[in-house]
């Protein structure tokens, strides 16, 4: 492994590590918002099924919650683009 690393030019190694970091970073940033959006939409669907007359208000609030949670994943995506070598 070390001899393999020693053969590569230092710039390539940095680029490779940067790409790995970018990919891992976006993947990790998507975990939490994934859980969060799942919870929000699940609760919204069950409350819409219980009280169909309040569906309009629940839907607007659901989009709001999704928008707030999604910002975290999107910041991860921005970091991913910035880190690409």
């Amino acid at each position, binding site marked *: 492994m070390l001899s393999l690393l020693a053969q590569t030019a230092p710039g390539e190694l940095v680029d490779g590590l940067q790409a790995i970091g970018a990919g891992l970073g976006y993947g990790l940033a998507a975990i939490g918002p994934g859980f969060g959006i799942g919870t929000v939409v699940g609760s919204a669907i069950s409350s819409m099924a219980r009280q169909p007359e309040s569906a309009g208000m629940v839907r*607007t609030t659901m*989009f*709001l919650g999704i928008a707030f949670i999604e*910002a975290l994943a*999107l*910041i991860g*995506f921005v970091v991913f683009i910035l880190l690409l070598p």
Partner: protein
Amino acid sequence: MSILALELPPVSHLFDWPTIWFDGTFFAINKTVLVYLAATAVTMVLFGLAGRPRESLVPAGAQHVAESGVNFIESSVVMQTIGPEGRKFMPLLTTIFFFILFSNITGIIPIVQFPANSRMAMPVALSLLVWVVYNVVGVKSQGVGGYLKSSLFPPGVPKFLYVIVTPIELVSTFVVRPFSLAIRLWANMVAGHLLLATFAILSATLWDFFYVPAALPFVMLLFLTVFEILVAFLQAFIFTVLTAVYIGGSMHAEH
């Protein structure tokens, strides 16, 4: 970049456009600016056509589109977030919605195929406008002291917790809100454009190589195109809803 032996252009090639007219001056025009000018013109023509006086009460054509848009904004944005006294913000919210929608939807219109909001300038400008509007509304309806008090010291919090809550509220109300509005719109459009470009390049390369497997990414490309229509609507809607929520939040003190 090459992924799976495919030659993908670097990311900047998808978003940087050469200047077309007035190169080097302050008024340089490239594809992004043209799309924004077209979106502005379409919005103005739509509402100009809808607003001219006419005899028939039954709406048709542009009038129908504009009236259902206004009704949609009124019933599902203003009424749900601000309430009846938010009707005076209808022009602002409707204009923001239709302008963002028209400059997003160019991402899937053939020949243009570039969502103008995937450049950061206009999302930042729009969210700064929203920032100014909701701060001015807050100061006007509650006074400077009342607005700062209700936004920095939310009631119902134990006194000693203000040490933590006030700095968080300060940063989240005055810094993070416009930042996250701009980032949300911009990053969604960048992501959609990247996905479409990736699958288009994939199917074009496979078509050159061997016909049959090119169908797979092409089906995905069609699906993503439909998905992008949804995203364009949804991002315009979310930007408008969040604007209304911020305005409503600074109009009424929390209690």
